[in-house]
């Protein structure tokens, strides 16, 4: 009987602790991460920093900030904090068979969201690697593959998790076939006519029937208006030049994807302010020494670069390795950090929410057990919108 009472007493204590735990879980009340070395990505590193998180946002960051009373204090001294990593070229969340609509070479109306497999175990794996935001979308099997989605790797609330439902249009040029580029150009010309037809209609008295809507051309109109960008898969320098000419003609925003030989025409790319999503430089991909130095050449030429894993080509969680390998091949530490945080955020036009540790941005934070620049460092914790999405201490159950 006595034992039983003791057990219930313990149970009550446990429930009490549990409820305190729930009440104090990040996201619901302000908390601070205290004592780490913080790399904001947009400014110099801050030693012994404090980050205040409120309502899933970064409310303040600095060496000395005012801590509101009642804020939970989480001691992370000895750790390193970097922004949640961003990969703007991924195929995570896709079944292989859903990546390419091969019979339809031009399909700008196709939307990644409609194929997304949100229960894939890959999302949680990405979080483990500190990768928080993705642009994931169609493959490169078509000339115009469709619209990508910009989404976080964690979060129950999809309205918050999805940053951009659709918009960015994936295109692919390959020197394999001369008709490819003409097919893209013809489609863009058609989109421009469509846009002008609608502009005439909107400017008129609207008495006649409105023009028939075309979902594919609608997507391209956004691109022509500069509201969205073109993501162009390209490996060869001459293909990239061709596409730069197309950009000159139509004036759309552009990033090259993979950008294998971009370093050979770095000046042409830099001059036009085009971003380069650079090859996945992890150990799996067979790249020679010349290609490995490409990122540093692009960086020096002033091209805004971003790393990608091209998941599942390499697993999403190894995005940080791309930075380490680029640094091995001459890219500066500062540029390498930017290329997996603020640069991709800016290229994907989501830097108002993510990409750096700054006041007002989403509290997407990666806590590492050592310098982010070293192979042996590991991700200890990941916060997404201020919620603890991964905690190594709790996740590791194996011997």
């Amino acid at each position, binding site marked *: 009987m006595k034992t039983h009472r003791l057990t219930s007493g313990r149970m009550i204590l446990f429930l009490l602790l549990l409820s305190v735990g729930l009440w104090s879980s990040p996201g619901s009340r302000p908390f601070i991460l205290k004592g780490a070395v913080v790399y904001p990505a947009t400014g110099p590193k801050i030693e012994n920093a404090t980050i205040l998180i409120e309502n899933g946002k970064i409310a303040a960051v600095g060496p000395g900030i005012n801590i509101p009373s009642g804020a939970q204090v989480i001691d992370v001294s000895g750790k390193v904090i970097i922004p949640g990593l961003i990969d703007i070229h991924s195929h995570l969340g896709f*079944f292989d068979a859903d990546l390419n609509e091969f019979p339809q070479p031009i399909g700008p109306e196709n939307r990644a969201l409609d194929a997304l497999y949100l229960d894939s175990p890959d999302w949680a794996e990405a979080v483990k690697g500190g990768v928080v935001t993705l642009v994931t979308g169609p493959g490169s099997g078509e000339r115009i593959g469709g619209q990508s989605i910009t989404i976080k790797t964690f979060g129950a609330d999809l309205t918050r998790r999805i940053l951009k439902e659709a918009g960015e249009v994936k295109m692919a040029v390959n020197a394999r076939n001369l008709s490819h580029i003409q097919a893209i150009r013809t489609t863009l010309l058609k989109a421009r006519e469509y846009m002008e037809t609608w502009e005439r209609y909107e400017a008129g008295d609207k008495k006649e029937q409105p023009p028939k809507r075309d979902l594919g051309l609608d997507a391209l109109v956004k691109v022509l208006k500069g509201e969205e960008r073109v993501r162009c898969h390209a490996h060869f320098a001459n293909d990239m030049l061709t596409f730069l000419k197309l950009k000159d003609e139509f004036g759309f925003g552009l990033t090259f994807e993979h950008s294998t030989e971009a370093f050979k025409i770095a000046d042409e790319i830099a001059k036009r302010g085009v971003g380069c999503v650079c090859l996945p430089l992890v150990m*799996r991909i067979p790249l020679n020494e010349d290609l490995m130095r490409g990122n540093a050449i692009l960086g020096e030429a002033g091209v805004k670069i971003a790393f990608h894993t091209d998941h599942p080509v390499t697993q999403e969680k190894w995005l940080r390795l791309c930075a380490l390998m680029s*640094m091995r091949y001459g890219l500066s530490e500062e540029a390498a950090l930017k290329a997996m945080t603020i640069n991709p955020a800016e290229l994907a036009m989501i830097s108002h929410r993510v990409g750096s540790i700054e006041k007002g941005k989403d509290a997407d934070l990666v806590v590492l057990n050592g310098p982010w620049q070293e192979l042996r460092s590991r991700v200890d914790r990941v916060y997404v919108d201020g919620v603890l999405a991964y905690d190594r201490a709790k996740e590791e159950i194996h011997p």
Partner: protein
Amino acid sequence: MNKRNELFRMSLPFLAVLIVSLVCSGAEKTVAIKGGTVLTMAGKTIPNGIVLIKGDKIQAVGDDVRIPAEAVVVDAAGKYVMPGIIDAMTYFGVRPFDLNDPSNPVTPQNRIIQAYYPFGQFMKGQGGIEPDKEILSGGVTTVYIAPGDRQVIGGQGAVVKTCGPNFDRLILREPASIDMAIGDPPKAALGESAKSPVTRMSIAALIRKSLIDAQEYDRSQKAYDAKPEEEKKKSPRPPRDLGNEALAKLLNREIPARIESDLPDDLRTAIRIAEEFNFNLVIDSGLTAYLLKDELAKKKIPAVLGPTSHPFVSGGEVSSTPELLRVMDERNAAILAKAGVKIAIASFGFGFGGFGDAVQGKWLLLEAGLATGFDLPDEEALKAVTINPAQILGVADRVGSLEPGKDADVIILDGYPLNVKTWVEKVFVNGELVFTKE
């Protein structure tokens, strides 16, 4: 008396070395690598050490080695010196279409050495062996080359050096093993044809059948050999079969089987068959091997693991194998090593004559470095790309550590080997300087 005999026996190799060096001293070059931190991989690290090379062998390693006057001295002050890296599983130097014979799931007679191409780029070059600069830039001096994993029994693997004076001198051990694959890789390839085997059951049954055939073959050959010469003259030898001959080597434990498998149950199948037929087994890839750590340790079955950054060396991509993703753990290497399983970390990389380049293997040290982030102690990580693969491949008498009498395959690095920014500066193979970083 006994003791004297023993002393004499023990001194024989030294006498041999002495005689050989006396005979050859005129022609042999002596090189002394001096002042570096020497990671011998034979149990000790020597700060400010000397590695003395005579001809193609290591003559001495230590901190008070006398440097002969004629020696060429290589200054390694502030640098690290260690044995050449060994990649225990590659498809290096083999044209991709030479890796598998899609017409037959069982080809133990095939020898990968016959597809090995160490002559630089196809239709280019100055003649002779042309080492791949890319793979040398990673300090890789010895590789195991294997037939592909799209067959059940692919054939015979070989251990070769990445450079040498001629083709024959490249070969350290051939055949080195019988290469097999069970589970998803052969299933994916074989499933496309309408022929058996397409299930795990049938793949295992096929291996057993092949081994029983080989047992039968071996028995009849041995029976013939045992006959008196008189009888041999009267009856012809049973016809030779190259496939069974190779499998007989496996059954006689002259060479091990390398069985590529990832899921725990595939690993169990491999162990089961190895025990049934009493052959030596090496697990290849073994993504979930940590789940069987105690069994592997007890049975002394080593594992050649794939690179951490690209674990899916065998089973296609992760999205097609979610069951693997659920059970795999990046601490695989660390857990196995801690349990006492001998592990190697290998690239499973390819590279042929300028196509694809041998560039995965060149980052093998970085893979070892990455594994230290997943609890593998530094010492174990370094062993996993040097002495462990040498032992697993059966060539530890020649390579894998810096010890007197071993081949002079030595690399000099500009920093701690497991750091991402460290570069291999010099590579010696057989005592020859074959690579210098620009």
